[in-house]
């Protein structure tokens, strides 16, 4: 239909275009790796040459050593605790948030009534609720999960509700002309057309849940990456702090990628647009 994609049929210009885009992609990736490697190299060398105080800044080789030490001790425990808290908080936030959004969509009246409260709750820094949460649910894992939930819930509600409200009116009118009930409007049009909204909010939420968990672990915890960071800071073991931060960033990236993967999987199963 368009230009044939068979190798034999490719024009000279097409080949050079493909080559250029591929080269560009590779060069971006290489520069990214070099930047990262260079950063660590400069850090290591500066610390070796005593240009920076590795007691305060730590040093890649010491981070590696700490990591090895931690792996043979209880890294898995801390990792597990943080991941568990994040995922539970994330799932709770996503489910409760979407459910609340559905209720608010269902009844525009309730939605109007709740609007100012949602706005205030959304702008309130949820960390301020920390002490209240600890007193109410107890100092432990539950408090941390509630913290993660508090941070991600309102954002999910607002994001999903916004998506529901902005579904194409013409499509809703179309099913209404067939006599669709409100429930049918939701299941046949609103929800399927907001899958991308759902995944966008999940992508934001996985990060927010992690923020909640780390903040919670700062306040109250016996294990977890946040606990390691706070503990390391208190005893001035910057190696431990840096190592934990680096592990945390890897965990954050992996969790995000997990959501992206899930999105691709779901899209592959139900949505074949433009295949």
């Amino acid at each position, binding site marked *: 239909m368009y230009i044939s994609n068979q190798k034999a049929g490719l024009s000279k210009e097409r080949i050079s275009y493909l080559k250029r885009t591929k080269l560009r992609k590779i060069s971006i990736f290489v520069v990214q790796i070099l930047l990262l490697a260079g950063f660590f190299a400069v850090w290591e060398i500066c610390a070796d040459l005593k240009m920076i105080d590795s007691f305060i800044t730590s040093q890649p080789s010491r981070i590696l050593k700490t990591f090895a030490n931690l792996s043979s001790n209880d890294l898995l425990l801390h990792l597990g605790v943080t991941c568990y808290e994040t995922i539970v908080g994330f799932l709770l936030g996503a489910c409760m948030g979407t459910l609340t959004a559905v209720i608010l969509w269902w009844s525009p009246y309730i939605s109007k009534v709740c609007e100012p409260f949602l706005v205030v709750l959304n702008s309130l820094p949820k960390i301020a609720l920390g002490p209240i949460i600890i007193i109410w649910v107890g100092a432990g894992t539950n408090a941390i999960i509630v913290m993660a939930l508090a941070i991600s819930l309102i954002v999910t509600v607002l994001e999903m509700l916004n998506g529901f409200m902005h579904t194409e009116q013409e499509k809703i*009118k179309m099913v*209404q002309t*067939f*006599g*669709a009930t409100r429930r049918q409007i939701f299941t046949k049009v609103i929800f399927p*057309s907001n899958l991308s909204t759902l995944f966008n909010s999940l992508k934001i939420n996985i990060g927010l849940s992690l923020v909640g968990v780390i903040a919670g672990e700062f306040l109250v915890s016996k294990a977890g990456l946040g606990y390691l960071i706070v503990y390391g800071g208190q005893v001035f073991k910057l190696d431990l702090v840096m190592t934990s931060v680096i592990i945390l960033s890897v965990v954050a990236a992996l969790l995000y990628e997990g959501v992206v993967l899930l999105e691709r999987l779901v899209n592959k199963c139900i*949505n074949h*647009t*433009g295949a």
Partner: protein
Amino acid sequence: MNDMLVLKHISEKYQDKTGEVEALKDINLSIRRGEFISIVGPSGCGKSTLLSIISGLLKPTSGEIYIAGEPINGISDKVGYMLQKDNLLEWRTIYKNVILGLEIRHMLTKENIAYVTELLKTYGLFEFKDKYPAQLSGGMRQRAALIRTLATRPKLLLLDEAFSALDYQTRLAVSQDVYQILKKENQTSVMVSHDIPEAISMADRVVVLTRRPGMVKSIYETTFDMEEREPLKTRKMPEFSTYFNTIWSDLDVHL
């Protein structure tokens, strides 16, 4: 009684923050079985409001509607409605899209599915039934939307500027296509259009509404001296420009 649709003294007033708007005033109209009616009028005269009222989406402030002799109150399964855009759901296959109306009305019987399959076959979409809307051309999508509406066997079909989202060439072809399908199925239809030539070329009768509040100003029976009517060909007939000029002066358009 051979009238499919009867409107008696239909009036509609809108209420909103800024005040009251009288959209339609005392509309009386009868449409025969199998007839194709076009409604034209200056913009904002309440053409689309009238369709919404006939479909049951909107309750008239006063007046009565009868379809096939029965009074209508609320959304009726006797009415099919085609909107401006095809509104195919892009996550459903063409087949899943055309059975949507039946699905919503819980009418997915063997008989109805056979009817849908027959429609798909007759109108050349059967081999595309497992494709997604994005893979079809604008004309084919419009056809799929029409089949989705016809699948519920409406006694009365409403078309609300049904082709205005298409580009001009596609639009000419699709209106011809749709006309032939509707005549073949002997479908009673009411089309609202702001396109006078389109209205003349397709309709058995053209109803002209006045400026707001919309009232019936005049009704023209459009007949052409041809064996079998084809919307595209009517545009070349000498009667065409006569109808056009009469309706144009009726619309009383000022800049």
